[in-house]
């Protein structure tokens, strides 16, 4: 169950990074959330076989991370941990789509490999940017931005409580796992059955806790809406940030920048 501990400490580190004070951190969360949304929409809207065209987009997460002093190694490590999902999603593409679309130095490359590469690249870009966004805005900041952007209260409240109680739940799960390990003496205990029971146990405990938290909220006048006193200020810098990057993303989407660069350089060479 140390996987849980690792997960929680990663989340904790993300949150600590988000407490820094840099120009990127000082931007209004709404600016960063909106810009990132445009980024993601642009990246995922490319065609199935587009790979090269995606490359220019790397600039946004890298600039954001550098400006926000988010260590790229840390981001890369999290990406590595979550990458199996993306790796498996497209794993059959090379087998199903064998039509040769390119040839590099005698090596024939099928459409399947290209689309697989495209999937992985898109995953790295979108997941990476989400991590950098969290590390520069904080989970709570993102929630706040969502609230101000008129995302329904129910959803924002869910997210806020999720972030607050994931640590409590994680601790509880760790204690359960520890209790199991202490009495299974290095074996797998009684197979998978205890894990099922433990999950059930965890669910019941969460219900009981949810009930108590709700009661505590009622005691302090909760009426279905979480009010936060934080105020946001969307200034000129925020506007510039949002418009500037959005324009760049749209340009990347519409103009094939790598091709253009290639033409320019070969053009100059002639």
């Amino acid at each position, binding site marked *: 169950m140390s996987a849980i501990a690792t997960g929680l400490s990663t989340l904790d580190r993300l*949150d600590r990074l988000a407490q820094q004070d840099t120009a990127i951190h000082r931007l209004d969360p709404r600016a960063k959330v909106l810009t990132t949304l445009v980024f993601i929409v642009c990246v995922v809207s490319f065609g199935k076989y587009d790979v090269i065209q995606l490359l220019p987009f790397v600039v946004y997460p890298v600039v954001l991370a550098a400006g926000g002093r988010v260590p790229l190694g840390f981001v890369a490590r999290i990406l590595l941990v979550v990458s199996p999902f993306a790796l498996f999603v497209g794993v059959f593409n090379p087998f199903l789509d064998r039509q040769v679309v390119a040839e590099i130095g005698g090596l024939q490359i099928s459409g399947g490999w290209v689309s697989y590469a495209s999937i992985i690249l898109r995953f790295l870009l979108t997941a990476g940017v989400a991590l950098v966004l969290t590390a520069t805005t904080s989970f*709570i900041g993102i*929630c706040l931005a969502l609230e101000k952007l008129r995302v329904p209260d129910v959803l924002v409240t869910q997210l*806020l*409580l999720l*972030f*607050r*109680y994931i*640590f*409590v739940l994680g601790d509880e799960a760790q204690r359960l796992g520890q209790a199991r390990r202490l009495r299974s003496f290095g074996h797998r205990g009684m197979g998978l059955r205890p894990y099922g029971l433990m999950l059930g146990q965890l669910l019941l405990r969460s219900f009981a*806790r949810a009930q*108590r*938290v709700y*009661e*505590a*909220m*009622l*005691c*302090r*006048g*909760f*009426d279905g809406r*979480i*009010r*936060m*006193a*934080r105020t946001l200020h969307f200034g000129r810098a925020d506007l510039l940030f949002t418009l500037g990057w959005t324009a760049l993303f749209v340009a990347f989407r519409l103009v094939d920048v790598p091709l253009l660069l290639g033409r320019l350089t070969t053009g100059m060479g002639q």
Partner: protein
Amino acid sequence: MSHHTISVVDLGFVYPDGTRALENVSFEVGHGEAIAVVGANGAGKSTLLMHLNGLLSPTQGTVHIGGLPVIKSTLPEIRRTVGMIFQDSDDQLFMPTVAEDVGFGPLNLGLPPEDVAARVDEALGRVGAAHLKERPPYRLSGGEKRAVAIATVLAMEPNMLVMDEPSSGLDPQARRRLIGLLASFEHTRIIATHDLDMAAELCERVLVMSGGRLVADASVRDVFTDDELLAASGLERPLGMQACPVCGGTEAGRAGPAGDR
């Protein structure tokens, strides 16, 4: 609401699964009194407390707070009057930061942001937790969590405080600080606890619960020296009122802590 009193008459409560948690409980609490509720695990202490601000509604009998009956239409008023401090502070601290958590109640009361900020500072200062303001609750120690949980309730400026096991899980010094803090309050206080020494120190009067019934309602000195009653209720004398294991004598001066307040 002129008086911060509690009146419980013939209270009975049966949980939906059929468990009889409370039976014929009646007592009165006067303005500014500090009362301990003691009893074995499962004696009905927590269930009783949850009736004092309407988290549970009686199956039988009535509860009045400051003359107001605890019924659905009075709940907002009752909950403002009665501040409830939960056993597990994690249940009570649900907002992203300490300041926001303390401000949650006042904001729900509809106070303007400046007043909320002032109340947050005041409540945190009162419990000595002003320096924790910007911290997320999951990065607090047990003692800090408890102090902040108390601040979240103080910020609503209640007339009465209802506490479930306030000293559980605290280290000795944090417990000592908590006792000092609770002793400094002038609110009407109801404290359910297994920490009988704390009860003896803070309260003049003790309610003893056993099997969902109120089996004694008397002064600290009377209850905590009645060995028969204590044994029947799954309790024992507070350590401060037991014979010293080293010298064999009792310290007469500490035997009646309620007296030296």
